[in-house]
């Protein structure tokens, strides 16, 4: 079983949540000469604040050719800007259009003025060249990549959430060196799983310290074993899933370390806290019990091969690592098997 071709092309990051898609909000845009811009914005700030859309920038410089031929064309050769007046649905900022109105106005022309609240119209009309229907992103961008993309639609601002480190991307890329290490550990998990069960694939878990690339502990599914918990001839234990067994072995290691530490004061003061910072390689996607056990153990990352679309807790039936209330979150990768192996 030493052939390397059993793994598919590479690990797939299983994000704790999908990035929200780009949703658009219809808005009324006003073409304004640059010199009038600050006046317009001042008026809007009072009469039509973008409360829910704080991330939307009010102004966008217009590239002349984009408005060629329309009423907003830059005939004076002066710098023209576009400004968000209000949303079309009656939400923030007042004015709105019914479906029918929208069809009639076709996004152009004087008809739109009737959709702007009268008080706003009175103040704005002298300063605005033309109105049109446009779009802004309906949600704030969640990461720098999204911010870049969504800026193509309309300028938006991106705020790094307080206390969170901005991620370059919601998808974590794995480098070549790391992939090789991953594949090796998955290979061990696979061999352990196969060795212990000739019929199908029982599960195996390998816990690795990524800083040293050393295997800290490994365990296989022992649900049909009668020796567990330091005793022999016991009732087989239905909860002895591979991850539970591996976590227990790590704990044994720490207890042994702590006992040694008592005798040997040369050892460092701090004992490892559970499986903090370690990676867990599993042959099969863990169930809810095991996935949560690995949260309790503060594992840094989980990598598995065989998904369980019905009962798996890391993308199969749900995504445990997406539950925000948990006090610890690990990252999850699935490395699909090569198609030929699956068949």
């Amino acid at each position, binding site marked *: 079983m030493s052939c390397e071709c059993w793994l598919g092309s590479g690990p797939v990051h299983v994000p704790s949540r999908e990035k929200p898609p780009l949703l658009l909000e219809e808005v009324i845009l006003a073409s304004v000469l640059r010199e009038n811009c600050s006046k317009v914005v001042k008026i809007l700030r009072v009469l039509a604040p973008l409360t829910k859309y704080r991330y939307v920038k009010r102004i966008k410089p217009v590239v002349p050719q984009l408005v060629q031929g329309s009423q907003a064309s830059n005939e004076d050769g002066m710098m023209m800007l576009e400004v968000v007046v209000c949303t079309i649905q009656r939400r923030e900022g007042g004015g709105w259009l019914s479906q029918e109105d929208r069809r009639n106005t076709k996004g152009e022309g004087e008809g739109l003025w009737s959709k702007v609240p009268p008080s706003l119209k009175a103040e704005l009309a002298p300063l605005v060249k033309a109105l049109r229907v446009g779009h802004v992103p309906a949600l704030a961008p969640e990461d720098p990549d999204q911010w870049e993309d969504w800026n193509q639609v309309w300028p938006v601002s991106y705020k790094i959430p307080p206390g969170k480190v901005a991620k370059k991307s919601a998808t974590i890329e794995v480098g070549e060196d790391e992939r090789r290490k991953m594949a090796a550990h998955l290979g061990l998990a696979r061999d352990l799983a196969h060795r212990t069960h000739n019929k199908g694939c029982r599960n195996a878990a390998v816990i690795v310290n990524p800083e040293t690339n050393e295997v800290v502990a490994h365990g296989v599914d022992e649900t049909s074993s009668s020796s567990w918990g330091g005793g022999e001839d016991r*009732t087989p234990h239905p909860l002895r899933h591979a991850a539970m067994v591996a976590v227990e072995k790590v704990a044994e290691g720490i207890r042994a370390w702590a006992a040694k530490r008592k005798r040997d004061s040369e050892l460092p003061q701090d004992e*490892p806290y559970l499986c903090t910072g370690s990676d867990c390689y*599993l042959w099969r996607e863990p169930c*809810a*019990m095991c996935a949560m056990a690995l949260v309790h153990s503060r594992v840094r990352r989980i990598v598995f091969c065989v998904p369980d679309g019905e009962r798996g807790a890391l993308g199969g039936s749900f995504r445990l690592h997406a539950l925000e209330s948990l006090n610890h979150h690990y990252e999850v990768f699935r490395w699909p098997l090569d198609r030929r192996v699956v068949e």
Partner: protein
Amino acid sequence: MAPATTAPHREDPPATTSSEDSLFTDRERGFMRLALAEAEEAYEVGEIPVGCVLVRRGEVIGKGQNRTNETRNGTRHCEMEAIDGVLIGFSQNSEERQSREAMARFWDEVDLYVTCEPCIMCAGALALMGVRTVYYGCSNDKFGGCGSVHTVSADGCGKCGGGDGSPALGFDCRKGLFAGEAITLLQNFYIKGNTRAPKPHRKHLWRDRRLEQAERDGEGGGDRGDGLVE
């Protein structure tokens, strides 16, 4: 081990019965009192104060306290301790050990009384064992597997080892029995501080960058929202 300290709540007479408590029978209340006693013992040895008893045919067949600190194993919640105890107790030639059906019938008559809502892991474990009903005190807003955070109690749990492939079904839940007492114990514990949970300044051999993050984000003190709570 941490020196034994008396839980402050003990100075007061038992809290008065809340309206929720009166929805339960005297017998059920009696079993939850036993679970609370387990939790108090855990408190006194510096463990997160959650306790439980397993009851079958009106008899306590197992009990457990959280032992995550002592064992250095974050999965040793009281439910796991109690289940292990029952399994170890089966004699070599008991009927249950002879047939899978007898074992299933056995657990289908078992109820759990636990002071705090089982976490997602324990709810999965209880589904895998096939217990009948889970009575719990307070809800567990961070980790609860019986509806607070996820619904393992209703959905059941997979068998990620493969096994016979059949998924484990869910179980019934009844909540709110002596919730106040359970919460008081936990609050006292966290006021005292979980001595073994990592301190913000403490370095780990396997330092998790996200841990530091959690400590920065953590509400009310770095070592409080410890994952070892059921």
